[in-house]
């Protein structure tokens, strides 16, 4: 091994420490007693520097904090289902009928532009809209808002996967008298398979992670775990270990998705944010 290579590997190790260190500190904080959190020198190795305790998790599981995860699960799942159903139809159209009206490249571009617009610039009118309808701070409002913002991403990703299915397969099925519904159910969706599953996972992940709309469209009666996090700071003293526990629990779904869909992650993030 040349010295250049050793230097490079040391560089990668330092980057690894930088990328994973903060997350590691958060996870161990969740297992600390409040008095152990910030000590000098820092306590960083469980069982050596400090005795792990489930105090923080007990607090999360016995207060309304745990219900905020359930809320996140509900709104993210419902938003994903709507986005995927309408997105699949639209993506099929964009892929198969690029010359038809509403299916051409311009319409596709307009749809994708929605994804890149600043949420901070539309959150006020959206809040006004739901207040106007008398639905502010309800599941319906947050789910519907989430669905709308997920459609462009779902369409973009699914279109890429549909493009890969040879049109000849569908033509053959059409010759056998398969209608559109049967082709979609029996040919397109099965062939999309893992790609569709990965799209579902990524769409869901972005909604699970969403913060600004969760805070402003809901956040009073309907509280997702991300919208709950700022409330943790309002108390007399910050419960750092509860903070750590909330962060750790919130990071479990993303980690699972990263592990399960690792083969797709490169493709998905090319399309995602």
């Amino acid at each position, binding site marked *: 091994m040349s010295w250049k290579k050793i230097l490079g590997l040391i560089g990668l190790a330092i980057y690894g420490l930088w990328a994973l260190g903060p997350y590691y500190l958060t996870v161990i904080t969740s297992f600390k007693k409040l008095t152990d959190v910030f000590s000098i020198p820092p306590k960083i190795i469980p069982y050596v520097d400090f005795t792990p305790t489930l105090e923080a998790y007990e607090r999360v599981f016995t207060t309304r904090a745990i219900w905020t995860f359930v809320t996140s699960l509900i709104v993210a799942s419902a938003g994903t289902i709507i986005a995927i159903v309408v997105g699949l139809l639209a993506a099929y159209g964009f892929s198969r009928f690029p010359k038809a009206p509403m299916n051409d490249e311009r319409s596709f571009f307009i749809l994708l532009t929605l994804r890149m617009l600043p949420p901070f610039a539309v959150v006020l*009118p959206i809040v006004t809209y739901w207040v106007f309808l008398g639905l502010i701070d309800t599941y319906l409002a947050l789910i519907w808002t989430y669905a709308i913002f997920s459609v462009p991403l779902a*369409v973009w990703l699914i279109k890429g996967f549909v493009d890969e299915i040879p049109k000849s397969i569908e033509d053959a099925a059409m010759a056998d008298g398969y209608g559109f519904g049967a082709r979609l159910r029996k040919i397109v969706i099965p062939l999309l398979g893992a790609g569709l599953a990965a799209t579902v996972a990524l769409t869901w992940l972005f909604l699970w992670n969403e913060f600004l709309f969760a805070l402003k469209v809901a956040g009073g009666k309907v509280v997702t775990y991300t919208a709950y996090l700022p409330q943790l700071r309002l108390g007399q003293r910050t419960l750092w270990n509860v903070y750590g526990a909330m962060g750790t629990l919130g990071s479990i779904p993303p980690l699972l998705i990263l592990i399960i869909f690792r083969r797709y992650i490169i493709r998905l993030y090319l399309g995602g944010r």
Partner: protein
Amino acid sequence: MTRMPSSSKSSRLPIFLQLPATIVIWSLVGYVLPWLIFTLFHRYPLGRSAEFVGLGNIIMMFQDKRLYGAVLRTIYYAGLGTLIEVLLGMAVALALVNLIKNEKIRFAVLMLFLLPMCLSEAVASIIWIMLATPEGYLNCFLRALGIKPIPWLSTRWSLTTLMIADIWQWTPLPLLLIYAARTSIPAEAYEVAELDRLSPWTTFRVVTWPYIKYAVVVAALFRLILMYITIDKFIMITYGGPGHASEVIGFYVFLQSFGYRNIGYAATLSFATLIVAAIITYFFWSMFRRM
């Protein structure tokens, strides 16, 4: 037999395919855009009805010194942040491919490096609050090493701390894009470069760069847009403070909307920032399509 009706049906099929998505989207966007355009010509004094002010809000925007400050901070935050994220991501991606030859190990390392990007902005924020708070982990480490602690969330540092947090979370994106582009280069290209005894720099310039340059440009534009439009960390970590020290454009619009409730002026700022974002996005897409 059923040939004729099915073909006439299929000519309408494309429009039916787009209807659900179009209805879902325009049920909200159809309100948002007209509302913004109506509201930006009005003022909403507390407890009274809308007052027409013509171009008043737009003139106010061009005279708003606080907005200019926010623009400068956005340029610093998004510009420098993007530059560092892309350069660091490129360095790590190329180092990974050059130094770790075993593909399984390399892929596992890549996955570990991607972790921060998968977390919620809100979770990343609490991680960085724990690190950056005056008695937090960063200062614990500094004190343990005998170095004077740094006031990470002070007027002088807060914007930079937010930028560091964003670099931590989002360097994985350029890293991933450039990694994907780098692994698509055929190994023969490097064998030829070695036979020709090209210097490492020349090899990078002649062999690597042509393959990865689009990934680099796309990653840079992507990060630039997203650093401009994402304000979650600002809301969670500093709330624009202390004072106006970490007030960027997005957060300023948020504050006018929900803090001061200057509804007319907030709509004006929203509309202006939407147009800027649309222009950048258009530029981005025309670039992306050329790939």
